[in-house]
């Protein structure tokens, strides 16, 4: 049996945040229900390809998946249980916006099998939250967090975002301190990237300036220091956890992970999948997605990956077979995001070629510049290297 992670995309939210360029948006209740039906059909339809797989993680992301009724979330999980083999201890994460839940819903979610919550707080400063277009206050979050604890969630992530327009170090440190005071098991701390096409980008002149590069960098360093004091260790460039609470699902993306698999399948609009050396992405057109699955039209939707002629009839797009060299690239640039680094032996075992032979020049250059360090079989980024990881990782693609 192979291990696999499952990603479920819920492309709905109450209102779009100003920085968000994910595939999501507000939708009517009817549209949400239509989508649910299509999603369940996709999960069922696809199941025949995964008889040799056992699900180790499920991540329900969005958008704001918690916008759905708890019953609907339960339905998704039940559907997966009914048609796939699932590890009894599978990590099942739900992304949650504090403004979309009450105690009763949290209880139902807990009972449905969700065992990990990822709560988007972003900032503990209400003015910053409002600026970002978040629908909740810090107090709303606090209330939801405590309710989640009370109903029995013992694995909670808090998402934070630094380098906001007008933000300074003191504000960021306050946010960090408030978050660690709650002792969540996991903290994701990203710095804001202003993406093309978002309101933040379009009206960038109207916003306060984002922190300059140096302050941004110091925020990152403060993050690590403060979180370390409270028992969180950085296991990935932007992710911190108490020992044993790393997000297993994300580890599948980044490395060969605990189960030595990089396989994950995504269901829902725009979801990406990588299984074996195949990669594809579902359509981003909700119309098409619904058309294919609404009527459970098996004729419209039937494609094995190798059958290119029918790809156009399905929701699967950008279907590619990964070349060895691409897999090597990904091994490097994804693996190096992990603080534990990449293993030369594992590289050799995977590709029958030595890492030094393929990337020796780059590795040597970065080691010389103090951006990477090698110990034994492992190469990894140094603190300095983490600060400029984009530049370094891009040298492996």
């Amino acid at each position, binding site marked *: 049996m192979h291990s696999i992670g499952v990603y479920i995309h819920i492309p709905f939210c109450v209102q779009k945040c100003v920085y968000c360029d994910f595939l999501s948006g507000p939708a009517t209740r009817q549209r949400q229900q239509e989508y649910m039906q299509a999603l369940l059909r996709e999960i069922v339809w696809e199941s025949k390809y995964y008889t040799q797989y056992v699900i180790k993680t499920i991540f329900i992301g969005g958008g704001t998946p918690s916008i759905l009724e708890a019953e609907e979330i339960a339905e998704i999980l039940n559907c997966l249980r009914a048609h796939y083999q699932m590890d009894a201890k599978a990590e099942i994460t739900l992304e949650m916006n504090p403004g979309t839940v009450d105690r009763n819903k949290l209880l139902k979610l807990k009972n449905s099998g969700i065992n990990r919550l990822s709560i988007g707080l972003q900032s503990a400063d209400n003015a910053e939250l409002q600026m970002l277009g978040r629908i909740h206050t810090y107090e709303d979050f606090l209330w939801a967090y405590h309710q989640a604890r009370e109903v029995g969630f013992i694995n909670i992530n808090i998402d934070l975002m630094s380098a906001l327009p007008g933000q300074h170090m003191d504000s960021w440190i306050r946010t960090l301190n408030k978050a660690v005071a709650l002792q969540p098991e996991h903290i994701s701390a*990203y710095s804001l990237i202003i993406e093309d096409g978002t309101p933040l980008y379009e009206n960038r002149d109207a916003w306060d300036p984002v922190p300059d*590069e140096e302050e*941004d960098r110091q925020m990152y360093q403060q993050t690590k220091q403060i979180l370390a004091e409270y028992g969180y260790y950085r296991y990935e460039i932007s992710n911190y956890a108490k020992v044993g609470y790393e997000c297993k699902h994300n580890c599948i*993306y980044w490395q060969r992970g605990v189960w030595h698999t990089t396989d994950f399948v*995504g269901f829902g609009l725009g979801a990406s999948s990588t299984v074996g050396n195949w990669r594809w992405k579902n359509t981003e057109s909700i119309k098409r997605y619904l058309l294919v699955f609404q009527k459970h039209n098996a004729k419209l939707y039937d494609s094995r990956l190798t059958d290119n002629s029918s790809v156009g009839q399905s929701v699967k797009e950008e279907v590619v077979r990964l070349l060895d060299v691409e897999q090597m690239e990904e091994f490097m640039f994804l693996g190096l995001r992990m603080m534990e680094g990449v293993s030369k032996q594992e590289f050799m075992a995977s590709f029958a070629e030595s890492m030094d032979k393929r990337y020796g020049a780059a590795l040597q250059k970065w080691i010389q510049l103090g951006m990477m360090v090698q110990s034994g079989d492992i190469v990894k980024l140094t603190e300095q290297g983490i600060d*400029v990881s*984009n*530049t370094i990782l*891009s040298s492996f693609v």
Partner: protein
Amino acid sequence: MSSIDQSKIRNFCIVAHIDHGKSTLADRIIEKTGLLTSREMQDQILDNMELERERGITIKAQTVRTVYKAQDGNEYIFNLIDTPGHVDFNYEVSRALAACDGAILVVDAAQGIEAQTLANVYLALDHDLDVFPVINKIDLPSARPDWVKNEIEDVIGIEAQDAPLISAKNGIGIEEVLEAIITKIPAPRGSVDNPLQALIFDSVYDSYKGVIVFCRIMEGKVSKGTKIRMMATGATADVVEVGYFGAGQFIPCDELSAGMVGYLTASIKNVKDTAVGDTITDAQNPCEEPLPGYKKVLSMVYCGLYPADGAKYPDLRDALEKLQLNDASLFYEPETSVALGFGFRCGFLGLLHLEIIQERLEREYNLDLVTTAPGVVYKVYKTNGEVVELTNPSNLPDPSEIDYMEEPIVTAEIMVTTEFIGSIMELCQERRGRYLGMDYVEETRALLKYELPLNEIIYDFFDALKSRSRGYASFDYDIKGYEQSELVKLDILINKEEVDALSFIVHKQSAYDRGRRMCEKLKDEIPRHLFEIPIQAAVGGKVIARETVKAMRKDVLAKCYGGDITRKKKLLEKQKEGKKRMRQVGNVEIPQKAFMSVLKLDDSK
């Protein structure tokens, strides 16, 4: 065809300033002489290279023979010899003119005379050509033909009152031009019975026929089987074919005799054997003296050409080889640069020639090129008496071995409206110009004369001239000779390493200023690295200017997009994309465009 009446031949060219309508008039002449139907006409028949058409200039001389039935009832053969219209090709122009007996001067009815008009018409008069003016674009609302007529008489000193008033574009007045060609341009002279004496005024390479030599028969005759000798190069060959020029095609005939213009082929492999200006004679019955005016073509401007992708070096070599087949004035030899790898040092007639070659390499041969700063040929007089002709700044001998250096000087004529005289004089001063004088062509226009070092005008002088005169100044120059000058080599050090491809020779006085601006420009062009990069300009090991590219401190890819690895990879690839266009010098990646952007340093744009 062998018994052509010499008195019924007219060999002529058209001289004009760029855009005054030379090519359009040529088209009309060809059209009206009935050689082609209107349908066959391409818009501009003579300019058959794509590049030429886009730039509106004629690069290689082209020639066409047409037959005109005149009002006197006789048929006349017109050989219209096209001349390149740029100062870079002055020598080619002069040889093409030497093949003519007369010239039509085209002047724009609205613009009047320009610096280039003057230069070309004087060149024609120097060759004893009979020049008659036509005034073009008379249908423009801004046309002032009477004013232009007076200007032609005042400035050039040729009769202009009965100049045909035409619109080549709209076909107005063309008949009048055709008749004027017969009456105002003399028939050729020369005897068929004299030994062969023919002037080479152009050549092209054809992969089947070898070199096709364009020539004007001055004396004697040539036909298939004649054993010919090129008097300057000494090359000999047996003529395979002779003929004349249809529009865009070669039409064989039996014989070319005195007074005729045509081509010959003789299985000649190399255009270098058929140098423009050389005299062809009969090897068995040679003429006594070659025709005057032959000069060996010298490259005036040099630069390094490197393939952007090092693996394309052989492609670049092949492309240069092919271009040289048709362009004997293109010089190249292999060179290597620490920064740019393998490439070629190339010599050109001038900057336009350089740009044309560069564009043809990029367009016709699909090559991506990195060009180093163009330079002129300096003469380095060494203390041991040796004289070095320096074409690559990297080869400058050690300063202790140099006695003195000389640089080429040009005499320049700049036509400018009076309101801009001040700013143009300022520009010339900045470029170390020596003021020679100024003539008022009319109340509002003057002709400024300067001596300028060639190296001051090869980069961006023309641009600067245009921008400082709002496009009104026109410019022409002639090489005057060499003069002693205080020259130094300016080196650029990036991260303490000298970048050979960025070195150049500059006058001592300009060194500080140029160095400072180079550093500033490079600071903008070189992306931040993970470490600080000093950029220094140095003369003789002494740093005269410095800038710093600050280190990049933070560059972190934020969110993991729900497993959308493709998207993340695209972001990294985008970041990397630029790097492919970079050159590695030590630990520093220098964008290719940095090598070229530093050529244009004029601030006042």
